[in-house]
């Protein structure tokens, strides 16, 4: 082994690479069908060129067959239902919420000593928080910021991963090895430590430092995953064909390789969304969350509620329940997507 960094965190890398192999079925399926067509003779003499037309029944693409299995998969349907309701709730949150989440309607009832958190009453079914704001409205509107944190953290992580992964996967040689070295070192730092370090670099915590801190942790995972799938594309026949036709390198990378390599990355993104929401809660709990709570976020609500947990645990339980359900929804959806795209489970 020439490079001292090469073997580090192999285990984690292998797991990511395993996931990257999911991109392969499309390719191996195509190879498999042409081989079997050539082997058995098929109807008429068959060249590799028209191997795809040999089958009497029209072939089923990977996505079509995955969808056929997903449609009847209760796990996927549950996950998709939760995810869709969550997104709808986030979009229409301001319309659904009975009150403004930033105004302390019940502030008169807050007594710091005897009654720090007003209980439920008419018009306020879940009661209020410690500054008299309607808890139900805050939960509903909170879905918005939670979705924003989750989506942006995932998207930023994805963009970073896409850039690094495409660079590494498209060019071999020193670009590939330099990029992967960076990725390996990033993978060898414990994730929360990395997130803490990133957010400590900002002068003061805000929602965006939180999002960036979570996103950076995801970058190496996406990058490695994408590089793996890109490498498989690079050695595939359709890329060879494109090269032989003299198509420009950038067109090959962006139109032939990248779109075909994205599948597992997108599956990973649904899982990362769940992780981002949970991580945001953890960082908020440690005090690195957004200090501005006029537009609430579930992780922030959960983090801030800890000082009231003994007398008024509902302040923690409701946002926690929301986070758990939504994280579960994304995880269920992501896992069943991954399973459906995995050729092994097609047996």
């Amino acid at each position, binding site marked *: 082994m020439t*490079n001292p960094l090469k073997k580090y965190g192999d*285990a984690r890398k292998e797991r990511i690479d395993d996931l990257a192999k999911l991109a392969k079925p499309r390719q191996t399926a195509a190879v498999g069908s042409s081989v079997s067509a050539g082997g058995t003779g098929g109807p008429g003499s068959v060249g590799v060129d028209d191997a795809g037309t040999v089958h009497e029944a029209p072939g089923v693409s990977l996505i079509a067959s995955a969808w056929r299995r997903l449609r009847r998969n209760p796990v996927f349907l549950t996950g998709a239902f939760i995810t869709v309701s969550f997104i709808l709730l986030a979009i229409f949150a301001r319309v659904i919420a009975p009150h403004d989440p930033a105004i302390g309607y019940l502030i008169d009832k807050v007594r710091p000593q005897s009654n720090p958190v007003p209980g439920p009453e008419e018009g306020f079914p879940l009661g209020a928080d410690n500054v008299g704001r309607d808890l139900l409205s805050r939960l509903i509107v909170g879905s918005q910021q939670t979705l924003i944190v989750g989506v942006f953290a995932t998207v930023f992580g994805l963009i970073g991963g896409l850039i690094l992964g495409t660079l590494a996967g498209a060019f071999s040689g020193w670009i590939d090895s330099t990029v992967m070295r960076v990725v390996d*070192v990033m993978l060898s730092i*414990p994730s929360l*430590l990395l997130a803490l370090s990133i957010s400590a670099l900002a*002068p003061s915590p805000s929602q965006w430092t939180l999002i960036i801190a979570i996103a950076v942790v995801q970058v190496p995972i996406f990058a490695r995953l994408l590089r793996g799938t890109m490498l498989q594309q690079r050695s595939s026949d359709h890329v060879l064909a494109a090269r032989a036709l003299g198509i420009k390198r950038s067109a090959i990378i962006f139109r032939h390789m990248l779109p075909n390599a994205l599948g597992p990355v997108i599956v990973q993104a649904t899982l990362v969304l769940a992780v981002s929401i*949970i991580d945001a809660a953890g960082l908020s709990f440690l005090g690195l969350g957004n200090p501005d709570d006029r537009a609430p976020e579930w992780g922030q609500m959960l983090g801030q509620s800890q000082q009231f947990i003994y007398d008024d645990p509902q302040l923690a339980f409701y946002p926690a329940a929301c986070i758990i359900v939504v994280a*579960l929804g994304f995880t269920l959806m992501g896992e069943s997507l991954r399973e459906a795209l995995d050729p092994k489970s097609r047996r």
Partner: protein
Amino acid sequence: MLRYIVRRMFQMVGVMLALSLLLFLWLRSLPGGTVSAMLGERATPESRARLTKALGLDEPLYVQYVRFMGRAFKGEFGTSTAVLPGADAFDIFLKRFPATLELSFFAILLAVLLAIPLGYVAARRRGSAVDNAGIVTSLVGVAVPVFFLAFLLKYLFAIKWGILPASGRQDSLNCTRVTNFFILDGLLTREYDCTWSALKHLILPSLALSSIPFAVIFRITRASVLDVLNEDYVRTAEAKGLANKTIRGRHVLRNALLPVVTTVGLQVGALLAGAVLTERVFNYGGIGDTLAVSFFSRDYSVLQVLILAAAGVFVIVNLLVDISYAVIDPRVRTR
């Protein structure tokens, strides 16, 4: 085998060097920087300049880095400014690290002891009640934020029912300290009430901390055993009429354990994140707790020890995983 280990050690040194460089650059680019952190708000331009010179911050970066590494090897990281003002940063680390080790060890032990047998049974009886219960538990285990689970456990068992202690590592029993591993100390000095007390304090935090490793290890074990059960060599072993015990032990489990070992190693590394959160909830006084405190109070001396140590532990664990990999799978050694 020895060559393999030595080669891995060299690679480990490389990673640590890269990480120390990163840490150094990170410390230099923090807002405010070391000088402001040490002087606080009373800094005058003169005192700032004096301290900058005294700390050698006016010299070129590479000189500073070499000096930084020199001190790091001697364990000199300066004195703490906020965690335990005046105490030596490295001493703080040495005192508190055993707490986190103890907690992590029990959490991983719990996770492994529960997850591997359960994952195995779930795979053998696919679709049974055990299988489904395991899958649901592992899915929920990943979706619940660790610190919330910790709070829930604390709220129920410590506050509401009062069965177990709510915080700390031990009741104040006047115990003798030998190694700072409280359970071990109690056994060594035969102060069994100390061990008992430390154990009681350990149950809730390690339970909370084990939730994620449990979920991950369970799922990997299940998937891996399922994979292996489909292999031809298992069918061959069955066809040869080998005893069930031999097939399970030598053919199925040994092959299925490879990815599991990897995962356990990964989880040990990832445990630090959970430890920070769990220790914070239970005021456990380990390095996780200290890490969070030193971040907020910008106690850079303590912070750099902890980060280097955390990265070091992570890298060493990876090394151990690679070695155990080689022990289980002879093919790895020649790769």
